[in-house]
């Protein structure tokens, strides 16, 4: 089994911790608990007949990467960009983080998650955005840590592309 490190990047309160909790232990906590520093989880998955142990780094939410954040990114084989579909500004943050991560890690696989897709009435990022990103060659998903929509699919998609 190969072991691969991935990092979740995104603004605060976009649902990174909840997405990991849904993917790793299939649970969801209503209450928002901020993440300080880093929390690491692992999950073993099987993609295209190959077993992969994913070491998932849940990084504290931030709008930009600091030197400390770059230390966390060291050795990552891929990353997950998370935005909150109900807060348009978090999508801009995700794009900024993507540029920084790409500069530091080089061209490694990543996926974009537009999370909280269940809150349809409060949505600020258009439902078509994920489709638009896909059209530009990005792997993008509308996800909901609450309902589980697309969560596993997105992580497995990334796992399948990890070298």
């Amino acid at each position, binding site marked *: 089994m190969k072991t691969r*490190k991935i990092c979740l990047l995104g603004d605060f309160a976009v649902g990174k911790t909840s997405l990991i909790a849904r993917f790793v232990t299939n649970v969801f906590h209503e209450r*928002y608990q901020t993440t300080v520093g880093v929390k690491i989880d692992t999950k073993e998955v099987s993609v295209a007949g190959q077993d992969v142990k994913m*070491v998932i780094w849940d990084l504290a939410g931030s709008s930009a990467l600091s030197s400390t954040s770059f230390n966390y990114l*060291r050795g990552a084989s891929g990353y997950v960009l998370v935005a909150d579909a109900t807060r348009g500004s978090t999508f801009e943050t995700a794009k900024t983080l993507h540029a920084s991560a790409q500069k530091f890690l080089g061209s490694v696989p990543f996926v974009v998650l537009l999370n909280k897709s269940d809150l349809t009435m409060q949505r600020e990022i258009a439902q078509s955005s994920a489709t638009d990103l896909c059209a530009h060659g990005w792997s993008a998903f509308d996800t909901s840590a609450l309902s589980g929509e697309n969560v596993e699919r997105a992580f497995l998609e990334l796992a399948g592309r990890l070298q």
Partner: protein
Amino acid sequence: MTVVNLTLARALRDYVQRRSRVLLIEVNAGFRFLRARGDVRHYGLARLQVLEDLTAKLHFLHGLNARQPVTLSFVEVRPGVVADVHIVPAGDSSWVLFFDVLEAYERERKLQQRTHETLLLNDRLKAMLSDLRQTQAELQRSSLELKQANDSKARLIASFGHELRTPLTAILGFAAHVKPRAAADPVLERGIAAVERGGEHLLNLIDNLLDASVLELGQFKLSIGATDIRQLLGEVADLLSPLASNRGLSISLELDASLPTCVLLDAARTRQILINILGNAIKFTERGGVILCADYRDGALQISVIDTGTGIDPSFQKALFQPFARSTHTSVRGTGLGLSISRALSEAHGGSLHLKESSAQGTTFLLVLPAERSVELVAVRDSLALRSTRTILICDDDADVLALLVALLTDAGFHVESCHRGEDFLEQCHALKPNLVLLDLNLADLTGFDCIRRLRAAGEDVPAIALSADNRGDVAQAVVESGFVDFLLKPLQVERLIHAVDQWSR
């Protein structure tokens, strides 16, 4: 000295050890365990074997380079244990250092939690504000659309009213004109009475709709003047006495000694209110009678209309003054606007109109109108001989109305000249030098305002009375400001017409 320094160094080491649960693990280049010093148990690393792969137990080491110095802050090493982790290369091996920072982590977490929650709340507030602004903009748009629709409705009603009033002038005017001549023929007399009733009902409906529209738009203006209130009350009682006697009812007028003869108020609107209340009292009373009584207290007229009807249904009393309110317990016709308009008019006067009491024995409405005392008016009715010396020039493009005016004023003894067009009017004015002109405001070629302006510019100061079927407040205001001496609203009241012509042709 050396002993003291050594003791101090040990104390400091023990303190740091206790506070930070320091752990030092020596590893080779592949993060394989060599040896450890410090609190291994605290970090869950008690039974490490030499050359055991440390990344299997410490997942966060995966992907890192043991030969590259790095610091990782606030790493959750295991549940409830948070450490700052440093990788420090030293010679052929490296050291992985752990410092427990749980206290600092908890402080940071609480602070960050508060900050993030505040920022989220701020975001939500911004979103709510944006929604509110959007809703407000939509409301303003709707309100504007509503106002435009209302204005259109008012314009439509005003235009509609004007169009209906003009033919009604001829219908009601000629009916009144030929009525005395039909006294000998009962069939003709009944026919004329029916024409009058129908015309007046129609006029009443139009006036109510126009008033409701103007009051709703807040464009209503009072025309305050010296009014003989005793005469006005008498006229209203006289006007409605045929209706009362037709229904077998008595109508009586009780005027208190405190009531002055002359007060300042809008006579036309006061008459309208009284006709409405008194008319209702007569219409809804089966037997007995109606009393109109008035006195004057604290600078206000107190006018009561008392009837001996069966009272107003209690369930309907609350809605009585609402527009279009009509009781389901009666078959009497009406627009349901009369009382709401009357109340609005009385309030425009600074007064009030309310239902004082209503029972099976009867109903009393009380109208209170603040009105200052005024000097008394002297009514003068000129003799026919005197009238024949006066030339009245009338200009109206409606042939029927013009014929009616000529007939009424000629019968009243005046010397009357007439024309249809504004240009002809100006010419005749210069040629005839009339004592008074009656001028319709909406002529085919010129407006009445154009005519009066040109007349005054030419140095003619003949008194002019404006005629129009448009009863909007701003029209009356414009008439006064343009130099007309009076304004007669179509359909014309014959008495009022003769009185005005008498007054201004002297």
